[in-house]
C-alpha cells in the first residue's frame, strides 16, 4: 500500500503541476470574466493537492509501521534499525525528512484552512506558489519511499546494539561528579519548560514567537540526545542500550510523548509559514491571528502533556 500510495502521490503531483502553475501565473492578471474559470480550476487543483499532501502525511506513520513489518524478514535485524540499515543509502537521510517535511505539508494545509475561512480566496496565489516550491520535496519524499520499498532485500545486517551501543557516547558518563544522563534530562526538561513558557508568551507578544523559533532547534537536538542517552536506557531498563527504535517499539507511550513534543516544536515553524504567506488582506490577517492563537495554545498544552507523561514515566522508573 505504501508503494501504491507513493506512486499515486508522485503521479498526482506531476499531473497537478500544470493547473497550479496556470492559476499562480494568471490569478492576479485575470479579468473578472476569466476568474470564475480559474476558480473552478483552483477547486480541482486544491482537491488534488489536499489528496497529495494527505497521502504524504498519512504515509509518515505508515512508513515506520511498514518498515517495522520487515523486521522478521531481515536477517540480523532486531528492530527498525536493522531494516533501515538494509537500504542505508537513503533511509537515514529520509529519517530526517520524515520529521521535517510534515511541517511544510501541514503549513500548506494551514494556509488552505485560513484561505477557506476568508471570503475571497486572498491566499490562492500564495498557496499555489508555495505548492510549486514544495513540489521537489513531495517528489523526493515519494521517490524515496518507492526506492526504499522496491530495494529492500533480506540482507544480513547488524543489530542495533552492535551499531549504536558503542563507546564513546556523545554525553560523558559523569560531568563534574554528576551523571551525564541525569544532566541531559535536567537540561532537556529546563529547556522544554522555558520553551513552553515562550509558546504561551507568544500568545501575547511577538517576541515569544521569535524565542520559540530560536529555542526549537537546540531543544530538538537535546530531545534526540535525551531519547537516545537517557530515556531509552532508563525506560527500557537496559543501562547500555540506546536504540530509539527499540524504545518506541517496546514502550509505546514514548511514541505519544515524542509526537506531542514534535507538534510543540513544529508549531513555531508552521506559524512562520502562515505569518509570511497567510496575511494578504485584513480578513486573512484576522483569521491568521486567530489560527495562530489556537495553534500556540494547542502547542503549549501538547508540551505540558508531553512533559507530564515523561515525568510520570521517569517516576515509575525510580519507584
Amino acid at each position, binding site marked *: 500500500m505504501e508503494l501504491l500510495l507513493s506512486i499515486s502521490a508522485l503521479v498526482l503531483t506531476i499531473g497537478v503541476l500544470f493547473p497550479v502553475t496556470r492559476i499562480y501565473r494568471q490569478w492576479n492578471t485575470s479579468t473578472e470574466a476569466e476568474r470564475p474559470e480559474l*476558480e473552478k480550476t483552483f477547486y480541482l487543483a486544491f482537491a488534488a493537492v489536499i489528496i497529495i499532501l494527505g497521502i504524504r502525511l498519512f504515509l509518515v506513520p505508515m512508513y515506520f509501521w511498514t518498515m517495522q513489518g520487515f523486521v522478521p524478514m531481515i536477517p540480523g535485524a532486531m528492530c527498525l534499525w536493522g531494516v533501515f540499515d538494509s537500504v542505508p543509502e537513503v533511509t537515514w537521510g529520509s529519517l530526517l525528512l520524515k520529521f521535517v517535511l510534515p511541517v511544510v505539508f501541514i503549513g500548506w494545509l494551514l494556509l488552505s484552512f485560513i484561505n477557506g475561512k476568508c471570503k475571497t480566496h486572498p491566499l490562492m496565489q500564495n498557496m499555489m506558489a508555495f505548492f510549486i516550491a514544495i513540489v521537489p520535496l513531495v517528489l523526493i519524499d515519494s521517490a524515496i519511499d518507492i526506492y526504499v520499498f522496491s530495494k529492500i532485500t533480506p540482507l544480513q545486517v547488524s543489530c542495533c546494539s552492535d551499531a549504536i551501543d558503542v563507546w564513546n557516547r556523545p554525553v560523558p558518563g559523569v560531568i563534574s561528579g554528576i551523571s551525564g544522563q541525569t544532566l541531559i534530562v535536567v537540561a532537556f526538561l529546563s529547556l522544554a519548560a522555558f520553551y513552553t513558557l515562550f509558546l504561551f508568551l507568544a500568545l501575547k507578544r511577538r517576541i515569544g514567537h521569535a524565542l520559540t523559533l530560536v529555542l526549537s532547534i537546540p531543544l530538538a537536538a537535546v530531545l534526540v540526545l535525551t531519547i537516545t542517552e537517557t530515556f531509552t536506557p532508563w525506560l527500557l531498563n537496559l543501562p547500555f542500550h540506546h536504540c530509539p527504535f527499540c524504545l518506541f517499539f517496546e514502550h509505546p507511550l514514548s511514541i505519544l510523548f515524542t509526537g506531542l513534543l514534535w507538534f510543540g516544536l513544529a508549531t513555531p515553524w508552521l506559524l512562520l509559514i502562515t505569518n509570511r504567506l497567510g496575511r494578504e488582506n485584513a480578513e486573512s490577517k484576522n483569521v491568521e491571528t486567530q489560527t495562530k492563537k489556537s495553534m500556540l495554545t494547542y502547542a503549549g498544552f501538547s508540551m505540558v502533556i508531553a512533559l507530564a507523561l515523561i515525568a510520570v514515566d521517569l517516576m515509575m522508573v525510580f519507584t
Partner: protein
Amino acid sequence: MKIRAVNLTKTYFKGSPHEVSALRNASIDIAERDFCLMTGPSGSGKTTLLCLLGLLTKPTQGKVYIDDEEVSSYSDAWQTKIRKNKIGFIFQQYNLLPQFTAWENVALPNLCRETTAAERKQQALQIMTDLGLKERVDFKVASLSGGEQQRVAVARALITDPEIIFADEPTAAVDEETATAIIGIFKDLKQKGKTIIVSTHDKSLIKEGTMHLTINHGEIQAPIRS
C-alpha cells in the same frame, strides 16, 4: 435583506464568434421587504439578472451587494453559504430530481443543514401540507402535474425559510388555478416581510409588486415603485 447591483454586465461565450451580451450595465437597488417584479420579452436578460442577483452565476463585470456586503467577488464556497442560508430559488422549469419523491425533493436543501432525517421529513411534510400537496408527498415528481411540480419547487425554495426569494416565471408553465395559488403564496411571503424578486409576464402578479422593472435587450429601464 436589501440587494444592490452596480453596473452588472454578463456576456456569454466572451471572445468567441457566438458572443452574447445578455445584460449590460444593469444597476438596481432593491430594498428590504420589496416585492420586485421584472418584465420584458423573452431573451431580454431577466433570467440572467435573477441568476446574477441570486449568486448562481458570476458577472462579467459589476458588483452585487447583499445588505451592503459586496458578495459578487466572494469565492464559490462562500457564495454557496449565502445561497444556502439566505436565498430560495424557484425555477421556471422546476428543476426537480425525477428519481426522488415529492417530499424528498422538498427536503433536499435541508440535507446540507444541521437537521436530522426525521426533522427534514417533518418540515417537508409541514410545508407541503401548507401548499396543498399533502396527498402527493410520496409520489415521484415525474408523476405529478405541472402545477403540482411547481408547487413542490416552491415548497423546496421555502423550506429553509430564506430571507430572499427569487422566482423565474413561476406561473408561466402552470394552469390558472395553480397560478392563483402561487400568487397567494407570494402575497403571504410579502406579508411576512421577505424580499421577493420575480420575473414574470403574469399581469395579475405584476399588480402585487412594490417595484416594477422592465428589461429590454439586456438593459434595465427606470424602475417604477408603487
